[in-house]
């Protein structure tokens, strides 16, 4: 997977950042050993970069969001953890060699629609379900 560049944390403000902004100092993003907790990471793939604009009409690119981060005990509410994931992370503490941590994975996905020409110059519109990550969590 293409990895994003490291980001600087935003400056301290008196207002809470909107939910869709990158996590800042108000969010406990650092789990054990300073690693980031499970969350959604943003990544955008431009169809222009792929040289596809001669046949793709819309959209201009694809939101290739992905989930990454630690699912370590205690799992915070912001990690969207299932009860099972909470238990598994606890069991992992007791038996780390036998039971892995819960996985950081998409918990909500949305569709994306693509409008494009085929080789016969017909115009095709297709909806692809479960394509874009909306939320991540520990499962």
């Amino acid at each position, binding site marked *: 997977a293409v990895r994003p560049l490291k980001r600087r944390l935003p400056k301290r403000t008196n207002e809470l950042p909107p939910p869709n902004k990158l996590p800042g100092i108000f969010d406990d993003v650092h789990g054990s050993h300073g690693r980031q907790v499970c969350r959604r990471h943003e990544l955008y793939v431009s169809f222009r970069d792929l040289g596809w604009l001669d046949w793709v009409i819309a959209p201009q690119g694809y939101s290739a969001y992905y989930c990454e981060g630690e699912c370590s005990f205690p799992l915070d509410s912001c990690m969207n953890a299932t009860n099972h994931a909470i238990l598994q992370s606890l069991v992992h503490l007791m038996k780390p060699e036998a039971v892995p941590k819960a996985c950081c994975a998409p918990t909500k996905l949305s569709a994306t629609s693509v409008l494009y020409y085929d080789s016969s110059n017909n115009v095709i519109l*297709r909806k692809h379900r479960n394509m874009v990550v909306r939320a991540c969590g520990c499962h």
Partner: protein
Amino acid sequence: GGGASGPRPSPGCPQRRLGPRERRYLQREILAVLGLPGRPRPRAPPAAARLPASAPLFMLDMYRAMAGDDDEDGGTPERRLGRADLVMSFVNMVEQDRTLGRQEPQWKEFRFDLTQIPVGEAVTAAEFRIYKLPSTHLLNWTLHISMFEVVLEQSNRESDLFFLDLQTLRSGDEGWLVLDVTAASDRWLLNRSKDLGLRLYVETDDGRSVDPGLAGLLGQQAPRSKQPFVVTFFRASPGPVRAPR
């Protein structure tokens, strides 16, 4: 062009140029997810013809409606689209006319290449769209527009036809005329190698046949934004099985 909506990189989104190998790998993977065997290579129209065409304009409108539902995956779909997950538009490749000067009824026939329809897709609806201008020859007349599928062409007599739809309008009306051709879809899915032939007749109240062109119906010679086309709506089918990587 056209100002199509769609995802754009958010302000905090990292921007990075893809390397050649990354680009090739990404292309292959995305094409596989889209269910395409390879990268489409549409024929570029000549520079003079690069004006907005009717089918892409209509489909762009459909895209905006469909993309507006994307965030509500699983919710109530936009009414116009129903449960369609795939919409295809086809521009006609051949047009024939039988017009004034003959004894037989006058008609206009359109042929569409449907070989690009994916196998296994179930049709929920299909429409033939043709633009009508106000008729300058027939004033204040009621016109009956009927559409048939050309099932079998006969060399020694009239072709075998299958009735599809009938619309009644006034000679002074203007706008897109939409004829339901869904009933033809059963046959075209069985016989993909054959072009879809659609024949259009225009008659007056007293049964007199009228040249569709004189009735104001535009064919292939119309401006690109007003040329006729077929649009087909397909129900979701499971995506093609991807080979394991």
